[in-house]
């Protein structure tokens, strides 16, 4: 259920991008799932397959990259990747750590087929602004 709501939001965002780029169709959607994102890749995949049919992604694949948890230690300042959910700095064993990456699901890239003429006409392809890197803000709490 939670994965379905994420896929609906993903399909909406990809749909807007496809319109902006005058895409004929979307062929691949790449997402990154962190260890603490609360998302199960298999369920995400099946939700994508279920919900994509009436959208520009009906022929698209979903590529999921799983990443660990990136933490920055407040005591020793070292940034480390955790592969298991042990909330401790592997360097100095302090438990005062800030999560800097891996607690989100991120849309990375969208591959689409575009009509060359339409592209020349609108002339704005590949000018999508980069999203703000909110993963670098301290997570709540």
């Amino acid at each position, binding site marked *: *259920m939670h994965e379905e709501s994420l896929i609906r939001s993903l399909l909406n965002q990809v749909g807007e991008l496809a319109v902006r780029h005058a895409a004929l169709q979307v062929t691949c959607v790449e997402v990154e799932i962190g260890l603490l994102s609360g998302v199960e890749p298999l369920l995400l995949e099946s939700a994508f397959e279920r919900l994509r049919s009436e959208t520009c992604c009906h022929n698209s694949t979903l590529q999921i990259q799983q990443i660990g948890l990136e933490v920055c230690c407040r005591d020793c300042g070292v940034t480390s990747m955790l592969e298991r959910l042990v909330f401790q700095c592997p360097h100095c064993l302090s438990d005062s750590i800030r999560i800097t990456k891996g607690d989100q699901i991120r*849309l*990375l*890239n969208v*591959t*689409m087929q575009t009509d060359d003429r339409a*592209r020349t006409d609108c002339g704005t392809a590949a000018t999508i602004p*980069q999203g*703000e890197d909110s993963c670098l803000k301290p997570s709540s709490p």
Partner: protein
Amino acid sequence: MSQTIVPVNRDLQADRKQIAEQLRQQFTQQGTLVINIVSSPGAGKTTLLQATAKHWADRFRMAVLVGDLATDRDAERLRPFVPVEQLTTGGACHLEIPLVKQGLARLPDREWDFLFIENIGNLVCPASHDLGEHLRVVVLSTTEGDDKPGKYPKMFRTSHAMVISKCDLLPYVPFSVDAAVADARVIQPELVSVAVSSLNGDGVAAWCEFLEQTRSRLLQQTETPS
């Protein structure tokens, strides 16, 4: 026809998080502490809110938005004590910010000291949705077992406080308050823990005191903007 790769690199929930942040700032400005109450089904969220309302009586203004899959039973239980608005999810397992905004629009008054959002009973999905709260409080009942924090790490990691509920049952169930607190602190060392029995009232004063102190800090924050 050609292939274009559009780089995005953006949090899928960025828009929702921004709306939640705006809501939080708005409530901070008006001095309302917003508390998102999460737990598994039947842990005692509604009974805790009843006990909270009775404890404060007329000392503080509180309101509740209560989420439920299909019924308004929890709202009916709270209605004799506080202004309450039902959020029915139609089967969804968690609350999201658009539902909260709809509920807020239906509440009669907006001048509250405390606004509680009682989430759907579920220790998984609600952890991934910021509802604009200042405090996320996870309620863990003594009948669920003291090993739950480690089994639901995201929920406990993203919570600020844990209420151990149904403590009147401690003599009859194999639950150690110390073990539950220790398990939770491995995941979230800053987690505040309060042991409560909403039925006999033990710990309710301490719980309310914690909320009052947190609100005082929020008010200081608005007086001296950093």
